[in-house]
């Protein structure tokens, strides 16, 4: 989850998010390169009274400031496209979960083997236990097996929502009447928080997402228990 005075991304908890982090560093390095160059040139040009009123053109500089930006754009595009296609791969997921957005909660359906479904409402601030996070905790979490490819089918029942978990590098719009697919693998066990990312009414800020990654054995025990209680 986010922490106070945070400037960058949350720590990555999936391989895709790690790739996104490194790509962002790469793009930011290029931005810093160009910004430093431009800033220096601006200061150098603004701090002199010298001008040349008679410059008409220069083929050399035109070639330089066409080729150089093209090269820089290619240097950005190649890793970008690589990650784009990496994110699109859905490699034989072990589990498929449907995440459906409602006003104003998420519901999760695990229907691979049995009909397991539950709603996930935000825990109100006055009901939080010590150590829990305000506006981020839910009464029922989406439990997944750790290090296991998981497919998420995102949709909505009423208006647009968006299922987002920053530390897993996922954001997928929940559109009524449409199934959007995304996939992830959690690199480590733990809790990963997210919030609805598409304005959906009065309580848009109060329908968070919590992904709980536990070993497969415990995931199976949890799902069996939930089915028995249902």
């Amino acid at each position, binding site marked *: 989850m986010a922490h106070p005075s945070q400037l960058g991304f949350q720590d990555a908890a999936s391989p895709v998010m790690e790739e996104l982090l490194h790509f962002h*560093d790469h793009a930011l390095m290029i931005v810093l390169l160009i910004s*430093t*160059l431009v800033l220096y040139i601006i200061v150098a040009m603004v701090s*002199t009274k010298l001008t040349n009123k008679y410059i008409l053109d220069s083929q050399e500089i035109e070639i330089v400031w066409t080729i150089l930006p093209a090269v820089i754009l290619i240097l950005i595009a190649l890793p970008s496209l690589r990650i784009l296609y990496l994110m699109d791969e859905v490699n034989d997921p072990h589990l498929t979960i449907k995440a459906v957005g409602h006003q104003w909660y998420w519901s999760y359906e695990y229907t691979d083997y049995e009909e397991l479904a539950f709603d996930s409402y935000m825990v109100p601030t006055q009901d939080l236990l010590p150590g829990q996070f305000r506006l981020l905790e839910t009464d029922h979490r989406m439990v997944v097996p750790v290090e296991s490819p998981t497919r998420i089918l995102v949709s909505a029942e009423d208006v647009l929502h968006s299922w987002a978990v920053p530390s897993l590098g996922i954001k997928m719009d929940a559109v009524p009447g449409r199934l959007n697919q995304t996939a992830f693998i959690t690199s480590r066990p733990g809790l990963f928080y997210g919030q609805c990312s598409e304005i959906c009414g009065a309580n848009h800020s109060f329908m968070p997402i919590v992904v709980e990654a536990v070993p497969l054995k*415990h995931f199976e025990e949890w799902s069996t228990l939930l089915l028995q209680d249902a």
Partner: protein
Amino acid sequence: MSYSKMSLAKPVMRGLLGKRLRFHLPIAFALSLMAAAAFKFGVTEPRKRAYADFYKNYDATKEFNNMREAGIFESVRPTGK
């Protein structure tokens, strides 16, 4: 009476802006490349190393058990050990 003619050298009156550009542009490019290199070796590479180091000896079971005993999970209760 003769006297030697003393005069100053004619000052440079042309190409002043070009001279300034020829002086400053290489410095601008060099500084920007240095800034990029500083970011790469000060931020990018340490971050990649940090992630590699974190997962090199990461014991998922041990960390899971620590988190379980801390009571943060909903799907598993602490064992009390």
